[in-house]
């Protein structure tokens, strides 16, 4: 889809809102458009046609949800739900905390509960998140941020295709028109083939032979070498099973370029709380997600502690699923695992019906304030509520759950 360059709108020019809104529904966390609550309470976008934000807003009922918790499909009050959840956690030998669709406050509360229960934690989009983490752990990398790109880039190479389907506001944020001469889209290879494309590009940049490299790749290499400040943009969810290796190759391209000119990468991903919870767990514990507090101390297993794999292998006996944005990937398919779901009210009909405990929670940026990390990891954006909310936040529920667990376990 084509997105033209939107002229910069200053908040002072917008009559609808005196305070900026931060859109929590994709990792760009745009704060240059707003949301309006209609007379019927329905939420609509103002100043943007972003389909991703529009669809996410459509999941909110009007007026604000009066959803109540449920115990095995039967409505109940919050205390009953929390006590039941605490009993499940106390009885679990190896719980899994999945989804992780929450903000900094939710992540802080989740870490305490993870320590108390020895839970393994993995995000709904754990695979792309950990591919980035593993590439960093193995080789490091050189990255840039949205404003740096907008200010400085004379070449923006979108590796794997234009990212606008999943990140509709990307070109606006980058200050690029869709036909901007600085924009170069490299759609060579899909999924696992992306590794070949990245490896050939790295070889071309290093001046080595890259047998069978398509002409577009060779042309891209020449443009990268000629650019003063090139940015390689990629979407983390698009890199396939070998994503960590693709990222390593792109980092090699950047490292080689940086010997003589300037270049950096910008990854698009880590939305729905994944990157935020990863940051918070990393600073609190010293280790990123896919970790747990085991008998020997903290353990970090970026491959073994994959939520889907653990569920499929029967290696965990309880799932606590957190999904407060309503945009998260769905939980692993139901099997024999007991499930506690802290989720967006719309999950009541989807994941909620077969959950042992379902607790509807407020969405940061709609019903509560909060903080999320932007895609570049450099900026922690503040979120603001747009309408009054009766539902508790994830952090509130988790704090009460921790307290109830202490009582149940005593």
């Amino acid at each position, binding site marked *: 889809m084509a997105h033209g360059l939107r002229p910069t709108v200053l908040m002072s020019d917008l009559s609808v809102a005196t*305070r900026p809104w931060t859109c929590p529904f994709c990792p760009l966390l745009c*704060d240059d458009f707003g949301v309006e609550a209609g007379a019927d309470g329905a939420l609509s976008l103002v100043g943007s046609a972003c389909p991703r934000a529009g669809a996410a807003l459509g999941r909110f009922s009007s007026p604000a949800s009066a959803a109540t918790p449920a115990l095995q499909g039967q409505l109940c009050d919050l205390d009953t739900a929390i006590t039941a959840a605490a009993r499940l956690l106390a009885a679990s030998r190896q719980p899994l905390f999945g989804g992780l669709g929450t903000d900094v406050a939710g992540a802080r509360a989740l870490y305490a509960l993870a320590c108390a229960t020895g839970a393994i934690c993995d995000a709904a989009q754990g695979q792309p998140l950990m591919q980035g983490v593993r590439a960093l*752990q193995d080789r*490091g990398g050189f990255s840039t941020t949205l404003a740096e790109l907008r200010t*400085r880039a004379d070449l923006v190479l979108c590796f794997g295709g234009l990212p606008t389907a999943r990140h509709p506001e990307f070109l606006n944020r980058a200050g690029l028109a869709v036909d901007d001469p600085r924009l170069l889209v490299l759609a060579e290879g899909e999924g696992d083939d992306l590794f070949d494309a990245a490896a050939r590009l790295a070889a071309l940049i290093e001046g080595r032979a890259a047998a069978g490299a398509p002409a577009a790749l060779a042309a891209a290499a020449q443009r990268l070498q000629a650019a003063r400040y090139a940015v390689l943009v990629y979407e983390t969810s698009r890199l396939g099973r070998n994503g960590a290796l693709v990222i390593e190759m792109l980092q090699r391209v950047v490292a080689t370029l940086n010997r003589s000119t300037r270049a950096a990468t910008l990854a698009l991903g880590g939305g729905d709380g994944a990157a935020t919870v990863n940051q918070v767990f990393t*600073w609190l514990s010293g280790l990123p997600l896919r970790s747990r507090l085991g008998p020997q101390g903290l353990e970090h297993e970026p491959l073994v502690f994959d939520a889907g794999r653990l569920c499929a292998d029967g290696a965990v006996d309880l799932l606590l699923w957190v999904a407060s944005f309503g945009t998260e990937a769905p939980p692993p398919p139901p099997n024999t695992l007991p499930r506690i779901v802290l989720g967006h009210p719309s999950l009541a009909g989807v994941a909620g019906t077969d959950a042992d405990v379902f607790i509807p929670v407020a969405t940061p940026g709609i019903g509560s304030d909060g903080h999320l990390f932007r895609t570049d990891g*450099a*900026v922690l954006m503040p979120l603001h509520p747009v309408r009054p909310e009766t539902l508790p936040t994830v952090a509130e529920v988790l704090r009460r759950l921790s307290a109830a667990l202490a009582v149940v376990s005593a």
Partner: protein
Amino acid sequence: MSTLCIRGGLVVDPQQGADSVRDLFVQDGRIVAPLPAVDEEIDATGCVVMAGGIDMHTHIGGGKVNLARLLLPEDHRNTPARPPSALELASCGSCTPGTLLTGYRYVEMGYTAAFEPAMMAANARHAHMEMGDTPILDHGAYVMLGNDELLLEMLARGEDFERIRDYTGWTINAAKAMGVKVVNPAGISAFKFNQRKLDVDEAHVHWQVTPRQVLQTLARALRELGVPHPLHVHGSNLGVAGNIESTLQTIQALEGLPAHLTHIQFHAYGNDGPKKFSSAALQLAEAVNAHPNISIDVGQIMFGQTVTASGDTMRQHAQSGFASPRKWIGADYEAEAGCGIVPFRYREQSYVNALQWAIGLEIFLLVKDPWRVVLTTDHPNGGPFTSYPHLIRLLMDRTFRNEQLAKLHPDVAANAALRSITRELSLNEIAIMTRAAPARLLGLRDRGHLGIGGAADVVIYRNATDREAMFTTPEHVFKDGTLVARHGRITATPVGGTHFVEPDYDRGIEKRLRKHFAEHGQVNFDHVAIGHDELCRCCNGGRLLPAACFEGQAT
């Protein structure tokens, strides 16, 4: 609230005068005049009593620290598991521990405050979040300026100094900072334009601004804004042989304005001798001794594995080939700053590393006025903060120091000037360098001393000839009157407070800033500033501790 008497200890409180054996009384978290009766008494006979330690330059929170954690899972996995304690949450790491472990370890060592020196304005919320999750310790941060597009543009266009001063004041307020740090003035920005080196009087390739202009402007702005902590300077050419020239030019560029030159060890290198790398500690010390406007912290290196985490992208890129293990992270940030994370192992048998070690100690021992020298390793860049007790022993015990020197690269062991320096620092001088001086340099009036009305951040050390053991595990540590550690074990985990300053400035500058932020696609201008309520949430509900500004002086 309860009252306490710490009886019969040797009170080492440089701000109040000479060391003396006396009783110390505490009420409601404050030091008070003698009380007729108290709820609790501690026998401190044979002990040394000091104010809580204050680390004024330690990378404990924010984007690059967390990147360093992400880069080195091997460092974190290998931390010995701590024995379980109901009060502590699990946390690990040795070069860049998790925030939880950072708080526990500092407090067990008798430190009660720590300051993050390199907060990006765009990353300020993140930095405050991490510091808020560092238990017990009070904290604060210096916001980075001097590589941001706006300041360089204003200088390049010759805009009025007052506008830049107002922008500086606005930034400090918005980021809730305790001061301003400049890192490789104009150099981080220059690297974005592919400039690889920038001397003090060399022009930025695009903006045609020199580091000298940036230094003068920011130092003057802080003086006029009345910010207690003077400009915190990470100078040009960090780590480069012969960089003493840049450092002396930096001191000269400040033209008598107050400034704090940080991790000065990395900026005190000559290029004499067969290896073209030599100690310039004597030249540096002479310059510091001759310029009362200058204070320093040392940035001592300690042997072993660590990671260097710096805002200086230009220099970190240049050093990245020395990474051990062989991986590193760099980043350009928001038309404002940058960072570079390079893991490093300092080796005793490396000539360069051995000399760096000697240079740091020579600086400590050659600068005459301890009130202008602060004990740091630039954690984690020179070594982790947990090595402070070892460093204190090196400074207090010449025999031990020369034994260590003898183990190093033979050329350094044989020729270092350090070998002939006989000075041994006293307990009083250590107390100055680790609490009294940092408190004074930061403008913390009720910290760093044990006078009446001071905060009851009090440490009781068992007086032992092995100073390393003594400073590793104090007997008692009190934070605002609460016992927080005993014999190296955490006994309470109150949330620390946040120090910051709120200088006045002309709000007319905000229109200009609003336009700049929109043009560069940075966050919405109305989202930049952190209010008190939000700061409190970021910092986990800890107390807000605004420090008073002094009457700004026109210069």
